[in-house]
């Protein structure tokens, strides 16, 4: 079956552009949820770290008006994080791996800040909160360190620029949303060594080489036939 490379690339581009607003929306809700959790936690820590409202008992510390924003932020943020992974194209920039460190390091900072300067005290520290700060710093910092330690530039490139075309893309949870996955039905594409994503990458590289003048039209056509036909002329 013949595949038009230009159409293939154009379809991948359109798929990615269609997913862009959804990626923005889901990531926006994730960040909103993180921010609400961080800010409401600070409000609650200012009044001692706990509160209660409603019920038959008289609470010593009534919850502030903003308290309900924290559970709402956590629940919606978590659902949005899952949705973000599902809608974002596999090769696009991905901030997902930063979310866990962002959550634990930001909340850990609250524990540290209020542990060193406990509200209502002139001096001294709150060791209960400082222990929480250490635990949260480890939980958020260790994964971040592990991701950055081996190949920091490659990791940062993956986060801010996306998966490189020469690298096999990560397997998405929903393969049908991955760019170029819709071409899996083409037999010649399936015959290619790494699957359809490799075909797209190879075609993109060929296109760039042709535009740069490194390949003559004849060489480009021959190479294209090899990519699409898995080496068969």
């Amino acid at each position, binding site marked *: 079956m013949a595949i038009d490379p230009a159409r293939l690339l154009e379809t991948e581009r359109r798929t990615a*552009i269609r997913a862009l607003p959804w*990626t*923005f929306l889901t990531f926006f809700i994730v960040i909103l949820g993180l921010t609400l959790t*961080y800010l409401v936690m600070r*409000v609650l820590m200012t009044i001692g770290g706990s509160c209660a409202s409603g019920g038959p008992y008289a609470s010593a510390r009534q919850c502030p008006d*903003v308290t309900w924003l924290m559970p709402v932020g956590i629940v919606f943020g978590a659902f949005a994080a899952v949705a973000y992974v599902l809608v974002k194209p596999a090769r*696009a920039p991905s901030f997902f791996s930063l979310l866990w460190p962002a959550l634990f390091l930001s909340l850990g900072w609250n524990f540290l800040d209020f542990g060193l300067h406990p509200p209502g005290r002139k001096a001294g520290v709150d060791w209960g909160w400082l222990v929480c700060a250490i635990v949260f710093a480890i939980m958020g910092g260790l994964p971040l360190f592990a991701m950055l330690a081996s190949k920091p530039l490659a990791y940062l490139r993956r986060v801010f620029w*996306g998966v490189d075309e020469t690298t096999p893309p990560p397997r998405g949870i929903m393969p049908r949303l991955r760019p170029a996955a819709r071409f899996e039905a083409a037999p010649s594409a399936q015959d290619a060594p790494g699957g359809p994503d490799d075909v797209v990458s190879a075609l993109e590289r060929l296109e760039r080489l042709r535009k740069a003048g490194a390949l003559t039209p004849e060489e480009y056509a021959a190479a294209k036939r090899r990519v699409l036909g898995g080496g068969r002329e």
Partner: protein
Amino acid sequence: MTNGVRIAYLVAHLAAIVLGIAAGIGLVDWVGG
């Protein structure tokens, strides 16, 4: 994936971070009165 699309995704992520933080601050201020 073209460079233009990658840049669009990067900008969308950065915009979501800025707007998400701003919306969070605004919401807490508004609800907290």
